[in-house]
């Protein structure tokens, strides 16, 4: 089952396919899983907060209507079946009848309706439930989502951290959602309940004995250890103090890959789609000229970046949609190192070399705190661009707010940036290229890129439910932005999951550890 337009009714076969059958002798119960992370959550409610830090604990605490596997196939979760109307304007969710929140109250369609409308109103990804007009609740186990237009991203938006089902009886008390006290002591219906939250230090989750899937979860406890220092994260995994974690640093990846007893894999990040790119401010000269942006792209050797600077652990990324997505267009324009062509484009754009060989000077921003991911790319670009007569001044920001403020206000020329796709282009891709999203906030269209044809293609792709037609629209979109280059995509960030190799069924779906870990178990005593 791919995420295409269809009418689907989940069956018990799907449950079996997801491994929801009887527990085999191998799937042992008990034990603790210690996850180490460098990300520090603001709170634990993914309904009003995106990001890995909240998503990992959030998906253990809150169940969602559906879940998705490593092949992008959907499976029942709180909704045992679902049906999309032929006109694509409504989706009916049939909920399981035995799900309970951690405080013993039943999960009903009222909770589903409340959650979806809360997410629509408060989540930063406004496009996720943008077309949702209302959610009807004809009975306790049926929720009908009414749409203003067909919404191909809807089913994926009902999975994992994107759609936690909140207890209406806890949250619907008139308090503001982003600062609701329950965000720090959440009650959900997921496989684990919050036992202790020490902000900035540790989150302890305990098995929820009344979880609605019989026999689950296998683990007794999940402990999420928040460790701010990247070296300490690596050493915790290496020494066995932690059993699982996420890393992006190429040195750490190499080091842990060579450690006995650990499995290190890039799998589990297909949903996030983390792309590193060089952003251009297309509103300022000389970057307002497409030929200058193309010349910069031709001056870079992506293979050198991937193999030498990233030590071969990062994968190539040639376009705005992550290359592992079915919507990626492999035939879109790409740029290989060609200094002659770069020089010719710059000459053609009216920027001859001066007496000292320099054509013009650009400034480049870097994201503070992301050095391990960015590596030496800024320094490399500086030396490469000097080859074609472009001087680059690196402008460091002392901290995130400084950098974010510069990009949001347009006070930049070029900047390294890392942006996530979040599963469906509607959620994580459109925001960068729609001219209607040129806004003074970070991770909008801060490049100031505007092309009516791109706007039209994205708007049509955003409501096209036929998979092939939608793919064709995204294909055209990628052709255009590939030529016009509002950003130059460099690589998929080398996120890697690390697991103790005694962990059975490690979470390697497209959401990785950002999905319920009720199926994870220890194959032997730890």
């Amino acid at each position, binding site marked *: 089952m791919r995420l295409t337009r269809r009418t689907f009714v989940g069956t018990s076969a799907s449950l079996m396919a997801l491994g929801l059958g009887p527990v085999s002798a191998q799937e042992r119960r008990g034990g*603790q899983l*210690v996850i180490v992370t460098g990300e*520090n959550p*603001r*709170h634990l409610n993914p309904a*009003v*907060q*995106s*990001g890995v*830090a909240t998503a990992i604990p959030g998906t253990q605490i809150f169940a969602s209507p559906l879940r998705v596997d490593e092949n992008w196939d959907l499976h029942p979760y709180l909704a045992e079946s679902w049906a999309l109307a032929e006109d694509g304007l409504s989706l009916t969710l049939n909920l399981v009848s035995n799900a309970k929140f951690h405080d013993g109250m039943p999960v009903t369609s009222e909770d589903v309706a409340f959650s979806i409308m809360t997410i629509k109103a*408060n989540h*930063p*990804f*406004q496009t996720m439930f943008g077309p949702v007009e209302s959610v009807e609740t004809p009975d306790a186990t049926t929720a009908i989502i009414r749409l203003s237009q067909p919404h191909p991203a809807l089913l994926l938006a009902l999975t994992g951290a994107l759609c936690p089902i909140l207890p209406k009886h806890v949250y619907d008390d008139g308090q*503001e959602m*982003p*600062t609701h*006290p329950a*965000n*720090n002591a959440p009650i959900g219906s997921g496989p684990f309940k919050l036992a202790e939250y*020490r*902000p*900035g*230090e*540790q989150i302890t989750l305990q098995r929820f004995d009344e979880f609605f899937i019989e026999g689950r979860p296998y683990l007794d406890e999940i*402990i999420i*250890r*928040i*460790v*701010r*220092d990247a*070296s*300490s994260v690596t*050493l*915790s995994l*290496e*020494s066995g*103090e*932690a059993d699982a974690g996420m890393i992006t640093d190429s040195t750490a990846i190499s080091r842990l890959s060579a450690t006995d007893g650990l499995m290190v894999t890039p799998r589990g990040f297909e949903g996030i789609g983390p792309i590193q790119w060089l952003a251009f401010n297309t509103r300022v000269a000389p970057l307002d000229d497409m030929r200058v942006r193309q010349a910069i792209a031709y001056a870079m050797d992506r293979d050198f970046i991937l193999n030498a600077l990233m030590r071969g652990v990062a994968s190539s990324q040639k376009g705005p949609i992550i290359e592992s997505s079915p919507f990626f267009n492999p035939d879109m324009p790409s740029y290989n190192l060609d200094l002659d062509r770069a020089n010719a484009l710059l000459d053609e754009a009216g920027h001859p070399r001066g007496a000292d060989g320099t054509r013009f000077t650009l400034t480049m921003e870097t994201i503070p*705190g992301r050095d391990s991911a960015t590596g030496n790319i800024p320094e490399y670009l500086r030396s490469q661009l000097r080859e074609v007569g472009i001087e680059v001044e690196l402008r460091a920001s*002392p*901290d*995130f*707010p*400084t950098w*974010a*403020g*510069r990009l*949001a206000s347009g006070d930049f020329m070029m900047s390294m940036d890392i942006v*996530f796709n*979040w599963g469906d282009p509607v959620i994580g891709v459109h*925001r960068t290229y729609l001219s209607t999203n040129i*806004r*003074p*906030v*970070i*991770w*909008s269209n801060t490049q100031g890129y505007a092309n009516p044809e791109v706007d039209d293609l994205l708007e049509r792709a955003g409501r096209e439910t036929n998979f092939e037609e939608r793919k064709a629209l995204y294909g055209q979109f990628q052709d255009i932005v590939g030529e016009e280059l509002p950003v130059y995509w460099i690589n998929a960030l080398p996120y890697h999951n690390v697991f103790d190799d005694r962990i059975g069924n490690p979470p390697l779906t497209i959401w990785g550890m950002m999905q319920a870990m009720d199926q994870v178990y220890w194959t032997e005593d730890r």
Partner: protein
Amino acid sequence: MAMMRYILQRLLYGLILMLGVVVLNFFLIHAAPGDAAEVIAGEMGGTTEEMMAQIRAHYGLDQSIMVQLWIYLKQIAMGDLGTSYHFNRPVTELILQRLGPTVMLALSAQLIAMLLGVVLGVLSSRRPQGILSGFVSVFSTVGYAAPVFWTGLMLVILFAVWIPLFPVEGYVSARFRGTGLAYALNVAWHLVLPATTLGILFLAQYARLSRTAMIEVLGADYIRTARAKGLGEGKVTFNHALRNAVLPILTIAGLQFGNLISGALLVETVFNWPGMGRLAFDSVLRRDYPTLLGVLFFASAFVVLANLLTDLSYRFADPRIRTGGR
């Protein structure tokens, strides 16, 4: 009575100092580019202008800076340090959670540094050209010059990875569920490497200082007199010389307290020690003004208190100060 008046006077000065620290830092952190709303937007993965405006209104960031300062000062006058923008919890609660670990780390490091530093300094002063003296000099220089995060990482690699005697990070083991003595021992086990790391930095200074002070004192006339009276070398060194050499060491101990807290910041980050230093560091990056100002308020209170205790310890250690030099 005079002593009580002295203490009250110093406490009053301390309060004025703390107020100054809060006001100055309030303006400094507000002068930094960006605000908490931008950090929250970044952590949320982006947001809308409307949400940004909502966030700013919720935290009062849309008010003028003078209004914000007035509201903050009124709050702290009532004993309320506000609510953290990041954690959405009372700042006092966050600080009190971290106070114990930081005090424990700082005092343990101070104890290690002072005891070992003074002992090494005294021993090496007895034979200034000896092997031990040379070792203390080299160790002191290296210990003082090495960046504290480097020392920490080296100790972790050596004693937590290669020879796994101690844990890599944390205050208590993630899997540990004990209480009472078992809990205390688990914490102590985690404390060894961070306290040693921080201690090494200051140990070097104490060793050098006590060595120099002792060499000077050991050459004094009254020491010669003590020896001439036939007193043993141990009694001369520890009863006569050390007591006179200890004043500069006490002075440094008081003055170092502020440095100890700032050193703890790096050590807490390397060892994931859940103290105030890490909280302050993260608060700066997040523009979490209430939390940062709360930490600075507590830290300045500590420094004021440490200096007061140092002054009082002078009076205990040196009767001339107690009697005003009469």
